[in-house]
């Protein structure tokens, strides 16, 4: 559909929030605790964090929760009964305040969960989500969306994209999808007709720092490079980067049971953990941190483009911000581009 442009007054956002709540929508919005922001089920407009360049955690939780039931089982005298997750229980959710890099990350996550085998739990969760993207008017030294094909006003992945028109201004709302339109229908009078164009001047300026195509080509012959060892020497092998990443989808499957009842659950996992690939025999194909760091970069910039035709990185810079030892992905990618093979 064509993108429909509307004007939303500054003070209308709160009204919109209330209308959505009255229509029994669950609203996931940025919430700050201990100075770190994540997306939470939010009851009041006032609780929503604002002014962030980027939330600490990504919004992927909404379609790919950190811990998620796949099925329930129970044993009884009559035998074993197994029941899959009831997809009808998934609520309609508004994902509020997502940055364009996060919104576009949904597409990359989906490419994994739709690859050949369709993961209907993920698909159903996502189908219930309406994404309210908010363009970026600020960026920091960790941002690099423009280097991986995005931009601070990218509409990809959002159902409605709000762009703040100047510091104290109103919002330009771009209605991108049918889902977005459905929201407009609930609050017609808040979305005023407008002929404003040219949101670009209100967006953050972010020069391109590297070429992701070049990186991909470079990686084809980079597997054995010593660069991986040098880059990963200070990496401590935690999972912070993977867990805050909007596109990291690696998971583990575990059974959690109490007595005769239990569930099989899917939970996040990370390729950075030393035990991620260990065979039962004890043999580990990726037995050093450099191999695991290489997997992380190769997966995002070589394997995913080759197999799924998308890059596994949106340039949000979260992993670099979250890293306890300052592994800066942007810096490492630039040095990969610069190093001669």
């Amino acid at each position, binding site marked *: 559909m064509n993108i429909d442009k509307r004007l939303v007054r500054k003070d209308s956002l709160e009204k919109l929030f209330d209308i959505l709540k009255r229509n029994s929508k669950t609203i996931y919005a940025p919430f700050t605790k201990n100075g770190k922001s994540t997306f939470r089920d939010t009851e009041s407009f006032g609780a929503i964090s604002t002014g962030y360049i980027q939330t600490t*955690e990504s919004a992927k939780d909404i379609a790919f929760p*950190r811990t*998620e*039931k796949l099925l329930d089982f129970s044993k009884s005298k009559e035998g074993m009964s197994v029941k899959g*997750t009831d997809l009808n229980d998934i609520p309609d959710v508004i994902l509020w305040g997502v940055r364009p890099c996060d919104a576009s990350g949904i597409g990359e996550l989906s490419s994994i969960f739709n690859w050949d085998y369709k993961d209907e739990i993920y698909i159903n969760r996502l189908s219930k989500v309406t994404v309210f993207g908010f363009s970026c008017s600020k960026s920091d030294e960790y941002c690099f969306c423009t280097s991986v094909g995005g931009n601070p006003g990218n509409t990809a992945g959002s159902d409605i994209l709000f762009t703040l028109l100047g510091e104290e201004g109103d919002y330009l709302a771009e209605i991108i999808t049918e889902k977005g339109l459905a929201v407009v229908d609930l609050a017609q009078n808040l979305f005023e007709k407008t002929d404003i164009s040219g949101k670009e001047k209100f967006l953050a300026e972010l020069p391109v720092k590297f070429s992701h195509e070049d990186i991909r080509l470079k990686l084809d012959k980079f597997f054995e490079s010593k660069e991986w060892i040098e880059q990963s020497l200070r990496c401590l092998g935690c999972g912070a980067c993977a867990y805050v990443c909007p596109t990291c989808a690696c998971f583990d499957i575990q059974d959690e*049971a*109490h007595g005769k009842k239990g569930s099989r659950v899917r939970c996040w996992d990370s390729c950075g953990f030393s035990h991620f690939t260990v065979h039962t025999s004890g043999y580990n194909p990726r037995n050093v941190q450099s191999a695991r760091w290489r997997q992380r970069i190769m997966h995002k910039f070589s394997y995913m483009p080759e197999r799924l035709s998308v890059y596994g990185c949106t340039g949000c810079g979260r992993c670099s911000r979250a890293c306890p030892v300052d592994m800066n992905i942007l810096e490492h990618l630039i040095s990969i581009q610069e190093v001669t093979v």
Partner: protein
Amino acid sequence: MAEFEPKIVAFVCNWCTYAGADLTGTSRIKYASNVRIIRFPCTGRIDYMLLLKAFDEGADGIIVSGCHPNDCHYTSGNFHARRRWIMFRSLCDFTGIDTERIKFSWVSAAEGAKWAEIVNTTVASIRELGPYTDYKKVAKYPEKEVIHG
């Protein structure tokens, strides 16, 4: 509604308290039947994680008991255990785990009556405190569908 019957798990050492509990029985001393006894070679072997798991699996109270100091079959197992209990108990206190629900005691093989008394007073006090709903609420998983942050 039926009266609340506390579920108590007792972690005891083989050499003293288990033998003591045995004596309670052979002496025909009656005591509350709410206790499930789990026997260990020594109190030194009783990992604090086991106590947490007992609550996780629905216990309302816990008894940990072994040989009196200086009486350990392995000389020093209970001394090590005592240090661990001191620190674990204060960590429980700090994290808000109800320390009233974990009773520590020394019961020798000759103290059948003491064992009965420990069990009876524990059952009585847990009955007073009621079911450990605070813990069970948090352990409600896996009934809960999705755990968001």
